[in-house]
């Protein structure tokens, strides 16, 4: 597959071409950055390191109707999933995260809603030239220029974006953009390689994950959970913003005679998550919940799917209001092992 590039001055045209399909890209919504449908290409923000809300919100929307019905009627109508065209500007960690989540949503039974979106979408990745302070993708098998889960990887060069198609879908896109693209030169490729290398250098936070998945549950009663969770607010930011977190709740909502059964993000950090109707809660405090979060990502998920459910995007560290730092927890875990 041919590697191409789009010069900066043509980038707007490139976006216009992509916009012929339903295009999602990072934009400022309210005060924060997230993937949203592009209606005005000047609003697309690719410069910022990463979005606050990960692109999982495209494949697994925060609220999703499973089916509708009319009250007093038993006819059930599943909704059309709707169009998902291109998701542009997905960072390597997030693209990889989606691959990890695919495991779960296709485990035994396919999740039809998720699958349809995944199948339909073309993921256009964007290599990280300037990782953030808390990025640690390298420790988890990721890379600032990883291509896992992408159909096409873009690298931002000085004067152009390098387009590196990875799949058939990616290739198709490149062809569609032929009018504004030109073949990449060897210098371009070298420059990209250089940028990728630089980026790797910039990632300073690290953790050696070896031994954690197998041995984590053994630390069940370790004091570290209490210490970590003492200041936790149970707010769930760490899970809502995590690209690999995938838990949801199912609820019925009714207005007048119209009803729907829908699902919405849920978080293992909420007390209601495991609360039994009897009032009994198997995870009664934030200690148990924090422990479950880390165990789930770094052990249980590995047990089921052979991969750690964390890509080192650093969002949970960046956004935790009380500086609960997963790397710090993991460091303590390592120490305790």
């Amino acid at each position, binding site marked *: 597959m041919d590697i191409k590039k789009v010069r900066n001055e043509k980038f707007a045209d490139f976006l216009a071409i992509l916009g012929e399909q339903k295009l999602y890209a990072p934009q400022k919504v309210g005060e924060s950055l997230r993937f949203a449908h592009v209606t005005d290409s000047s609003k697309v923000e690719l410069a910022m390191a990463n979005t606050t809300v990960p692109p999982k919100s495209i494949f697994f929307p925060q609220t999703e109707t499973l089916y509708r019905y009319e*009250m*007093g009627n038993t006819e059930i109508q599943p909704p059309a999933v709707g169009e998902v065209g291109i998701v542009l500007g997905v960072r390597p960690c997030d693209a990889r995260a989606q691959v990890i989540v695919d495991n779960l949503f296709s485990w035994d039974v396919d999740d039809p809603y998720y699958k349809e979106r995944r199948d339909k979408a073309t993921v256009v990745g964007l290599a990280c030239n300037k990782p953030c302070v808390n990025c640690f993708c390298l420790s988890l098998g990721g890379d600032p220029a990883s291509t896992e889960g992408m159909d096409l990887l873009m690298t931002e060069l000085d004067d152009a974006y390098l387009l590196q198609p990875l799949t058939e879908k990616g290739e198709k896109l490149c062809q569609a953009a032929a009018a504004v693209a030109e073949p990449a030169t060897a210098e371009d490729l070298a420059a990209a390689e250089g940028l990728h290398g630089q980026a790797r250098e910039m990632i300073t936070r690290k953790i050696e994950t070896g031994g954690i998945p197998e041995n984590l549950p053994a630390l069940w009663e370790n004091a570290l959970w209490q210490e970590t969770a003492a200041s936790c607010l149970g707010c769930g930011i760490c899970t809502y913003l995590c690209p690999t977190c995938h838990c949801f709740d199912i609820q019925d909502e009714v*207005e*007048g005679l119209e009803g729907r059964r829908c699902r919405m993000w849920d978080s293992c950090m909420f007390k209601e998550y495991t609360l039994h109707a009897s*009032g009994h809660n198997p995870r009664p405090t934030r200690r148990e919940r924090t422990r479950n979060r880390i165990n789930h990502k770094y052990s249980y998920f590995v047990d089921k799917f052979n991969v750690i459910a964390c890509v080192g995007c650093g969002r949970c560290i960046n956004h935790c209001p009380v500086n609960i730092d997963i790397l710090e927890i993991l460091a303590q875990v390592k120490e305790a092992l």
Partner: protein
Amino acid sequence: MNNKPKIGVYVCHCGINIAKTVDVEAVTEFASRLPNVKVVRNYAYMCSDPGQLLIREDIEKEGLNRVVVASCSPRMHENTFRKTLAAAGLNPYYLEMANIREQCSWVHEDRDEATAKAKKLVYAAVVKARLLEPLYEKEVDVEPASLVIGGGIAGIQAALDIANAGFKVYLVEKTPSVGGRMSQLDKTFPTLDCSACILTPKMVDVANHPNIELLAYSRVEEISGYVGNFAVKVRKRARYVDVDKCTGCGICAQECRLAGRIPSEFDMNMGKRAAVYLPFPQAVPAKYTIDPERCLFLTRGKCGKSPKCADACASGAINFEQQDEIVEFKVGTVIVATGFDTFDPARKPEYGYSDYANVLTGLELERLVSASGPTGGAVVLGEGENAFVPKDIAFIKCVGSRDKSVGNEYCSRVCCMYTAKLAHLVQEKVPGANVRVYYMDVRAFGKGFEEFYDRVRREGIRYIRGNPSEIFKRGDKLVIKVEDTLAATPLEDEVDMVVLAVGLEPRKDAREIIDILRLSQSADRFYLEAHPKLAPVDTATDGVFLAGCAQGPKDIPDTVAQAKGAASSALVLLSSGKVKIQAQISFVNENTCRGCGYCVEICPYGAIDLVAVNRMGNPVQVARVNEALCKGCGACAAACFSGSVQQKSFMDRQILPQIAVLGVMK
């Protein structure tokens, strides 16, 4: 167990009142399609016997367990239909009404619009009915005893009535004797019978009645509980006289070093008494009391070599060691009869009450003309050498009544007549006296009042219409500056004595009882009755009643009448022995209550308390509703942030669906 709601909807034509504007058939058809509706009928008059029978039969035959009646205002017939449900064996609170008459057919003209609205109202009633829960009117036992606070004629009468009906009464009087203001009066209008003659026997009855426990010289300190079950705490003040030993002989008072040196309150400070005293000769109980603020021994720890009273008392009744005593008991009802204070004319300085000795209040004159008063009934002013008999005497009416400038807009209702009475008495007692009355109006509304007023005028008492603006001294005389508004001439009237017909005001310490019983005050600051017309002796607190001037100015006949009313209201509760408490009250989900106390602050009836409970071993405090005190306003429910307090039949989860219907349905 919860059964599936099966709702019957009954649409009333109300003759043509509803049917003329609302398409009753269309509403019926609409209702039949609503969820959980099993039966829908319409009928000419749902509230009629056959109408009600329809409902009863359906409940019995169709197994309905909720009923919606779409008819007139629930304020009109809610009770009627509740009874219908009850008669069919269904909990009466499974009823919801849709008001399609007052709120629909009567106020809208367009038939389509009115029908559409009626449908909406019926729908909202159906969704609410679906969520109704059965409620039960609980009954609590009534403690067969009553507390009467205040031993004036009102309290005396109420106590006697209740006691005569066979119930225990605790009569608490704060002064050493019962009798109240009436005991200070000489004669009573309009019949001019002697106040003491008619009052004293009743006072004695109170003292001797086997069912009455008289707690004189006492104050109520605390009342807790609710109708039927009030717990009362009374402080019996130390008299320093052992009432069991005191024979009332009065030697102590004669011997007291301060005898004749302390102004007597009973005589409006015109007469003098000793530090150990009986307020007045007919006082009940006829036991002496040592005034702890005056007694030399009690204030200084020393009275000569030894207290003379103690030395003199043959029965050894004087006891300086005596302590206040706390008495606690339970009662089912409370009657508040704490009476009134007279207006203090010092608050109208233009009348010179504080400056001139010859300006008197009506009550002072009562003592002056009384045979038991400081002058033995002679109208004499001044003392010793300066003593003289006033000849030119003027009364000024409405002092402190009907007067915005002193904050009393109301009429005191007795001043007109007591002025007439006192004018008559003065004229009778002072031969050749020249008596005139300055007035704004004469309100002689009561039985025999106008006749009495007529009689007094015929006796030569002059009524001059005018509101005096000032009183000042000119030589020995007092000068009243006034405009005769009938003659339209300014006057300067020179007199020897001015009598101010002061009005009636709430007791200065009225707040005390408000705090203890959580009573309210009306705008005039007297205690507020539950309803000015239909519940004039009741208060907002169930089981607490008002009698006499505590509720508002009135004369003795009205006082007695109201006292009898209060007694009979109390007796209704006492004799039935049980009292029903509201069903639509609030309750607290103690599992989710956080104990913030907002509801406690807000409840106007003090029905919610914070209590300590144990939540899985952890001590927490939660709100708890006292079901007998709650009146079901629901203010607490709106105040609770987390919705942990809810009002039965008006729960958030019952109201929200109503909102949904009214909002969503266009």
